[in-house]
């Protein structure tokens, strides 16, 4: 346990030095603009909480709040408002709260729209056990990297004859190459030892076979990182028995969806899991993946941990490792202490109290 914590600390510190080199923009001087999308339901309150904590930590972030709703652009295509798009194109970094997907609204889900607009091809979810939030699984420390644009979620379905439906799973060489390259880059930048490709090539020989081939090709250029391949069912089987054997996992869309939620369940659920979406052209949007929780919206009961940890992930992506560590430690210490916890974490404090406690700890660390 201590060994793992030490390893992650070392990896983050060393990663800091490495990724300073890989980011040409220096964020250490001046304020960095981040597009903030509060979202719906509990979105606004948790976004406020995160902004307060960042202020207490004196993080050099300037927030630009934007709302995203689907609007019909010229040509009848659904798109996000231009102010939101322009802001994101300029700042390249975004933090997003939960967005509700209205049923039968006539337009695709907002998350899908954002994904298409910025070509967010990689979904990264680091799952680390939170000391203090007890689950049956301890010592989880893995990262799931999921291809986010194609695969089983291409949305291409047809009714062949009445009673027979076909759904098409699309795997392309380009997308597989891109995600594999991202996975290995991530592993290298974050001092991860191995990358495992998850597939079902025994059954889906051509599609997963192509994905696997691309992963193998990219692995050739990253000889310092161990590359293994494993069947999806074996990964699931081993994951629930011994999650410590996994490091970085890369996979197509559907398997990624299932596995990333499985891993989130191992560490305590979507309320404490951070997530980041990496797009082409250097855009990165970090988000909390839980729902909008309309039943507790506006009642100061929400848990901002997921959005906070995503924001910490964002700081690391920008190279601000010191700030990230400070805020993360404050958050974990608060949870470990168990004195001020929101209802879903087992306590009965309010969101503002939880936020205040973290702010206090952050300021104490100065």
């Amino acid at each position, binding site marked *: 346990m201590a060994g793992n914590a030490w390893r992650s600390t070392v990896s983050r510190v060393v990663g800091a030095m490495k990724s300073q080199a890989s980011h040409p923009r220096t964020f250490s001087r001046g304020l960095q603009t981040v597009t903030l999308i509060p979202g719906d339901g509990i979105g606004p309150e948790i976004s406020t909480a995160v902004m307060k904590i960042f202020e207490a930590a004196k993080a050099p972030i300037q927030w630009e709040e934007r709302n995203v709703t689907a609007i019909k652009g010229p040509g009848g295509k659904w798109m996000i408002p231009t102010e939101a798009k322009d802001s994101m194109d300029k700042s390249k970094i975004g933090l997003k709260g939960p967005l509700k997907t209205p049923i039968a609204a006539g337009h695709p889900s907002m998350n899908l729209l954002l994904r298409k607009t910025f070509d967010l091809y990689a979904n990264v979810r680091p799952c680390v056990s939170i000391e203090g939030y007890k689950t049956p699984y301890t010592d989880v420390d893995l990262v799931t990297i999921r291809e986010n644009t194609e695969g089983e979620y291409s949305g291409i379905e047809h009714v062949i004859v009445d009673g*027979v*439906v076909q759904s098409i799973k699309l795997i392309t060489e380009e997308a597989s190459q891109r995600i594999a390259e991202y996975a290995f880059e991530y592993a290298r930048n974050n001092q991860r030892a191995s990358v495992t490709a998850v597939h079902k090539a025994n059954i889906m020989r051509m599609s997963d076979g192509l994905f696997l081939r691309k992963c193998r090709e990219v692995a050739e250029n990253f000889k310092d990182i161990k590359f293994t391949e494993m069947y999806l069912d074996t990964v699931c089987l081993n994951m629930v028995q011994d999650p410590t054997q996994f490091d970085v996992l890369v996979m197509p869309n559907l398997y990624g969806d299932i596995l990333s*939620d499985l891993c989130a369940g191992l560490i305590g659920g979507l309320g404490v899991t951070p997530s980041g979406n990496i797009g082409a052209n250097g855009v990165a949007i970090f988000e909390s993946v839980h729902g909008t929780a309309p039943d507790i919206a506006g009642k100061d009961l929400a848990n901002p941990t997921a959005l906070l940890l995503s924001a910490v992930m964002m700081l690391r992506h920008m190279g601000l490792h010191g700030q990230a560590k400070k805020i993360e430690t404050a958050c974990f210490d608060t949870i470990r202490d168990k004195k001020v916890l929101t209802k879903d974490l087992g306590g009965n404090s309010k969101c503002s109290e939880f936020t205040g406690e973290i702010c206090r700890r952050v300021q104490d660390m100065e």
Partner: protein
Amino acid sequence: MAASSAALSLPKVFRPVLGLGRSGNPAKVWAAAASCRREKSTFVPPPAKYGGRHTVTLIPGDGIGPELLNHVRELFRFSCVPVDFEVVNVNSSVATEDDIHNAITAIRRNGVALKGNIETNHNMPPSHKSRNNLLRTSLDLFANMMHCQSLPGVQTRHKNIDIIIIRENTEGEYSSLEHESVSGVVESLKIITRYNSLRIADYAFRLAREKGRRRVTAVHKANIMKLADGLFLQCCKEVASGYPDIQFDSMIVDNTTMQLVSKPHQFDVMVMPNLYGNVVSNVCAGLVGGPGLVPGANYGTNYAVFETATRNTGKSIADKNIANPTAMLLASCLMLDHLRLHDYANMIRGAVLTTMNETRLHTADIGGQGTTSEVVQSVMKNIQSGGPLTTEQI
């Protein structure tokens, strides 16, 4: 294609049976047809023609399959079980499909089979299909049933799990229909048909009723795959309306896996298409202690094939005498139950469970130090002390 011709021939199958017009509700039509043929979900086993002894096809497979099935044979011989095995070897490394077709013919003849997993080399070209998949689709073994129960003697993170997983076994993502339309772009087809979805849902509900279970949960991803999983879900709902005593709900697959690792006790019976079945059954097997403990059964209208639930080849532990024989032994008990040899099934099952829970002789995969042969010896000893007749003294 095969799927569409099956769907088109459906009305032809039902009309002569029931004299219904085209307006019959498909789910009720299916249920009525099914009940005409049999009352329970277990099928009439093939009769024991040769001197009261059954003949069962045995496919050793690869990896740990051969050694575990040898232990099964040894145990059956020891316990005087009236079952003879017809061994059909399937060589997974050759490109021709003759071996697997021989096996399929043998199963058609005998009606029942016990098999180990046949390895699929995924680096072979797409023309080399998975032998296991070929077997399942040729024999139309549409239902894969897996009963996950926590064993008190095995240390796991979650206790007292009791979930039945019913997985559609022939279509879905495992249709093996793939093509490369443009270089670098591969399409894989997932086929969902009304016929198979109704069939598996009906199987699930009937099994739930038979076993006295309260709730059936359908696992799907219909929010994304609206037509395919939407059809599956709709079929489940239609069948559910015919079983008002059983509660029906549905859950999205990613939420399901999350709930399984945090609160597995909320699940009772689960029914789902092929790929989700693969994921969920492996997660549940991991929750109760691993691949060496859970047996699986594949049922079709006329045939039944029994194997371990998670279908692992176990190449790395083959021939080292460390594999866990429990799953294969319990699978053979399921087979004996299918052949209506309940006394023998209960005797062997009781002996295996005694070894697991009381004697606590465990193999390495569940944290013990026993070897495969030691576990089998212990099972035989338990049978001898409790059973009526054995061939030798241990």
